[in-house]
C-alpha cells in the first residue's frame, strides 16, 4: 500500500494527496450530476452555483488564514451576523451606504482585535476564546441593536442594499466581483507579503516563530481582524440577498460547519502551516457542487447534512490512510 501511495505521491510531486482525491471526487461529482440531474450542466446553473457560493468562499478565506496560522475562529458566523446587523441598522437610521460600511468595518475591526487580544495577549487557547467571544458578540449585538429579537429585516428598496445584489455585467454580479477581489487579496496576503510568511511560520511551529523574534502578536491581530472583515463582507452579501439578518444562523451551526468543511476538504490541515488559495477554491467548489446537485435532486436539508457529515468522515479517514499521522510526534494539543 505504501508503495502505491509513494508512487502516487511521486507522480503528483509534493502535492497534498487529499487535495488530489478531493479534486477527483469533485470532477466525478460534476460528471455524475451532469449525467443524472436535469438542469445541472447549464450556464444558468453555473451562475447560480457561483453566486450561491460567494459568502461561503469569502468566509472560507477568513477561516483559512486563521487555520493556516494554527488558530481557529469559531466566532466567525457570530461576527458575520453582527456585521450585517450593524450595517442594516446604520442604513435604517438613514446613513448613506458608504458611511454605514465604514462604521461597520470599524466595529468589526474592533471585534477582531478583541478576539486577537484574547488569543495573543490574554493567551487563551483560540478555540475557547472564540467560542466564548461568539457568545459575547451575539449577546451584545442582539441586546444593543435588536432588543432581543432574532431577525432584522433589511430595507430592500434602499440603494445601499440593492447595490450589493446588482449585476455589473450580465451574469457578473457584485457578490462575484467581491468574491474575486477577496480571493486575490487572500492570495496576496498569504503568498506575497511578509505577514503571510509569518502566518505560515506560526502555523508550522508557533514556539519557534515566537522565539526567533517574529512579531507573532501583531500578526495575530492582523489574522483575526482579517477574519472579522471577511465575515463582515460575507454577512453583507448574505443579508442583502435574503433581505434579512438571522441570528439563528449562528445557533444552528450549519454554516460554521460548512466553512470548516471547505477548509479541511480543500486540504488545509487544522494543525496549520499548509495550504493556500488553491485549497480554498477546491473546497468551496466541492461543497458548492454538492449542495447545488443535492438541492436539484430535491434532497432535504437534513439528508444533505447527513451526506456532508459522511463525506467529511470519509475524507478524514481517507486522508489519514493516505497520509498517516506520526503517533510519536503527535502531541496532545493536536485535535
Amino acid at each position, binding site marked *: 500500500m505504501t508503495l502505491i501511495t509513494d508512487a502516487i505521491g511521486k507522480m503528483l510531486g509534493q502535492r497534498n494527496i487529499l487535495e488530489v482525491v478531493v479534486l477527483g471526487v469533485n470532477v466525478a461529482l460534476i460528471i455524475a450530476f451532469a449525467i443524472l440531474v436535469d438542469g445541472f450542466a447549464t450556464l444558468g446553473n453555473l451562475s447560480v452555483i457561483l453566486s450561491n457560493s460567494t459568502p461561503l468562499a469569502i468566509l472560507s478565506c477568513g477561516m483559512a488564514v486563521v487555520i493556516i496560522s494554527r488558530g481557529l475562529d469559531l466566532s466567525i458566523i457570530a461576527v458575520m451576523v453582527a456585521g450585517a446587523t450593524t450595517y442594516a441598522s446604520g442604513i435604517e437610521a438613514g446613513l448613506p451606504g458608504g458611511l454605514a460600511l465604514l462604521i461597520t468595518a470599524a466595529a468589526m475591526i474592533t471585534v477582531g482585535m478583541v478576539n486577537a487580544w484574547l488569543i495573543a495577549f490574554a493567551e487563551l487557547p483560540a478555540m475557547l476564546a472564540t467560542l466564548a467571544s461568539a457568545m459575547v458578540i451575539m449577546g451584545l449585538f442582539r441586546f444593543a441593536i435588536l432588543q432581543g429579537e432574532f431577525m432584522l429585516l433589511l430595507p430592500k428598496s434602499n440603494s445601499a442594499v440593492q447595490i450589493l445584489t446588482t449585476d455589473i455585467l450580465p451574469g457578473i454580479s457584485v457578490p462575484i466581483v467581491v468574491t474575486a477581489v477577496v480571493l486575490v487579496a487572500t492570495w496576496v496576503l498569504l503568498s506575497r507579503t511578509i505577514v503571510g510568511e509569518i502566518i505560515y511560520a506560526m502555523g508550522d511551529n508557533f514556539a519557534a516563530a515566537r522565539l526567533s523574534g517574529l512579531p507573532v502578536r501583531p500578526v495575530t491581530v492582523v489574522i483575526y481582524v482579517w477574519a472579522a472583515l471577511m465575515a463582515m463582507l460575507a454577512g453583507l452579501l448574505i443579508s442583502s440577498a435574503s433581505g434579512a439578518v438571522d441570528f439563528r444562523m449562528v445557533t444552528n451551526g450549519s454554516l460554521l460547519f460548512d466553512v470548516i468543511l471547505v477548509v479541511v476538504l480543500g486540504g488545509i490541515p*487544522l494543525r496549520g502551516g499548509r495550504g493556500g488559495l488553491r485549497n480554498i477554491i477546491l473546497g468551496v467548489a466541492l461543497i458548492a457542487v454538492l449542495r447545488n446537485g443535492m438541492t436539484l435532486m430535491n434532497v432535504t436539508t437534513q439528508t444533505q447534512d447527513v451526506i456532508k457529515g459522511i463525506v467529511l468522515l470519509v475524507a478524514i479517514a481517507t486522508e489519514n490512510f493516505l497520509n498517516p499521522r506520526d503517533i510519536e510526534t503527535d502531541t*496532545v494539543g493536536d485535535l
Partner: protein
Amino acid sequence: MTQAFAGRCEPKVTQLVKPQPDGAVHRPAIVEHLDFAALPRQHVPRFVLSPRRIFSDVLSRGWIESAIPFLAFLVVVITILSTTDGFFSSGNLRTMAQYAPDAGIVVLALLIVVAAGGIDLSIGSNFAMTAFVALFGFHILELSVWAVLPMSVMTGAVIGTVNGTLAGLLGCGALLTTLGTMITIRGLYTLASQSQLVEISASARIDAAWDYIGFERFAGMPVGFWALVVVSIAVFFMYRQSRFGWHLLAVGGNRKAARNGGIQVKRTVFLAYIMAGALVGLAGFLYAARQNSVGSDTGIGMEFFLLTALVLGLGGFTPGRGAVVSVLIGFATIYFLNNAMINAGFRGDLVQFTQGFIILSILAIDVRFKKNLHRLVASSYLDPVKRVPEPVQGAEGLMPDQIAPKLADATILGAGEIDGPEDVILDVQGNLYCGTRDGRIVRFDAPDHLHARTLAKIGGRPLGLAFDQEGRIVTCVAGMGLVRVSMDGTHELLSDQTGRSLISVQDDTTIRMADDLDIAPDGMIYFTDATKRYDMENWAMDLLEGRPNGRLLSYDPRSGRTRTVCDNLVFPNGVCLAHDRRHLLVASTWECSILAFDLQDLAAGPRVLVSGLPGYPDNINRASDGGYWLALAGMRNPVIDLAMKHPNVRRRMTRRVPPTNWLFGNLNIGGVLKLDSAGSIVDAFWDRPDGPLYMITSMREHKGALYLGGVTNNKIGRLDLPDVDNGWTGPDSYWGQK
C-alpha cells in the same frame, strides 16, 4: 582566651591512649561523661509560623490549580445569594436537581474524552439521538423500561464506537471527526424524529418505573440526581484507583510517554470514546423519561455549553487531568449563573452576553494565574529570617592567618576517579569507602588506596556513611533517605519518610536531604534531614533563608520505624555519638554550633556544646584521643554575618539580583578542627588558599592518618598525624574488636 572559655566546661584532659605499636590491644577510650547538665540550653521552636511561608506553601499545593474555578463558583453563589430571593431554597434546588443531572452526566462523559487527550463535539447530537431511541423503544416498540435503558446506553456506545474507531484506532483528528459525527447524527436524528414524533406524542403508554425515573424522588432527591452522584463517584474512583483511569490520564498527559510506557494508546482512546458515548446514552435515557418528548432543538448547543463548563472547571483546556470535582464545580457555576439570570427575568441576549463575558474573564484570570503561579511560588518561597550566630570564639591563635596550613602536606588519593565524596569511612582492614555524586558507593582497597571500584550503585546522592555492628555501611542519601549497603554490594532502602509535623501546609513526611548519621550502641540509627525545604542542588539556599528547616530523625532497625527526634533545627548536619555513648552530637551548620542530645532523655531537647565556630561545621567524628574531628565546609566572614542579620536584604537580593551574583557563604575554603572531649578547639588544619582540598565536609581518623572528603571535591586527602594512636580504627574503637 580565658574570657572566651568563660561559662564553658573547662577542657578536661581525658585518659589519653598513648601511641602504641601495631598489634597492641586497642580499646575504646574511656571518657568521662559529657557534663551535659552544665551546658546552655538550645532553644528549638515548636513550629515555624510565617505568613510568607504559608502563602508559598499553599501556592505550591496541587489543589491550588482549581483555586480560580472554585473562587469563581463562590463569587457566583454569593452574588446570587445577595441579589435574589430564594434561589437556594430547597424547592428551587430540588427543581434544579431534577433538570441538571443529565447535562451533569454528559459533562463527565466529555471529561473522560478530554482527559484522554481528545474532544467530543458529538455529545449534543448523541444526547438527542439516545433520548429519541429511548422514547422510540418505550412508546413505539413498547419495551419494558429495563430494556429501554440498555438500548439507549448501547446507542450512545455505538456512536462512541464510531468516534473511537476514527479518532482513536485510526488516529484521525478528534475535533474534525466528532464534528463530522455531530452533523451526521444530528441529521439522522432530525430525519428519524420527524418521522416518529407524531406517533410518540400520540402514545398514551404509562409505566410505573418510567414515571418513577422521570418524576419521583428517592430519599428526597430526584432519581436523576442519584444517577449523577453514582456516575461522579464511579468516574472519580476510576481516575484515582483503577488501572484504566490511570492509563487514560497517562495518554492524555503525554501520548508518547504513555506509548513508550507500554500503554496501548489507541485502544485506551477508543475505549474512552465508547465510555463517553455510553454515559451520554444514560443521560439521554434520563432526559427521555423526564420530558417524555424530544424536539428539534434537543441537545443543540449542548456541546458548547458543556465544553464551557468543562473548561471553566479545569481552568483551560487541559488534557490529562481527571478532576471530577473541579469539573462539577465548573458545571454548577455556569448552571447556577444561567438559571439565576433567567429566573431573574433577564432577556436571553443579556444572559448570553453576560455569560460569555464572565467566562472569558474567568478564563483569562485563570490562564494568567497558572502561567505566573510558579513565579509567584519562586519569588515567595525563599523566606529569610534574622539569624545571629555567636561571634567567633575559641579559635584564637589557630586561625588560617595565624598558623601554617597543615593540609598542604596531605597526599591525594583517587584524584579524578571520584566525584564529590561528601563523607569517607574506613573499615577495620583499612579499605576506604565514599559516596559519589552519581549515586555510587566506591571502595578503595587497602593498603595503598590506589584504585576506585564500585561497591554498589544506589542512585541519589550518598552523603554521610556509618558502619553498623555487622560491618554493613548505612548511608544517608539526599533525595532518597536511609540506605543500607552490604559488603557484597546489595543494598536496601531503610527509610524515606517520617511522620508529618503537626503544623505544616506542605506535606513534609518525605526525607528530602538526609545528610549524616551515626548508630547508637543499641543499633538505633540517628540521622539528620538537613532541610525540609530545599533539594540537594539548592541546599545552600537554606543559608540565605536561615530558618530552622532541618530535623533530627531516628530509625529503629528492629521495628523499622522512623521517628522525628527533634524538628526545627538549623541545618543539622554532622551526627556523631559522643565517646560516652550516651550523648549525640549534631552540628548545626548555619548556627556555627554543635548541639548535644542526651539519648536517655531526648525529650529534654538539645544543649549547646560549642558555639561561635569560625566556619560552618559539617560532619563531626570521633578522634582516637577522646576528642572529635570537625569539618568546616566553609568559613564565616563579616559580610555574610552582617547579611544574616538583615533578612530583607537577602530577600530583596534573591528577587532582584540574578542568582550568579548573589551573596553567598564562603563555601570554597575550609578545614578541620580538632576538638577535645568537652568541645574546645585544640588544633586546626587549614588548607593552602590555592590548595587542592577545598571545602572539606568530612574526615575520618584511621591508624594514625586523617582521611578527608569534600562534597565538591574530586579527590580524597590523606594526612599523617603525629602523636596519635596509630592502631586506632573507627569501627573497632566503637563496636569493639571481633
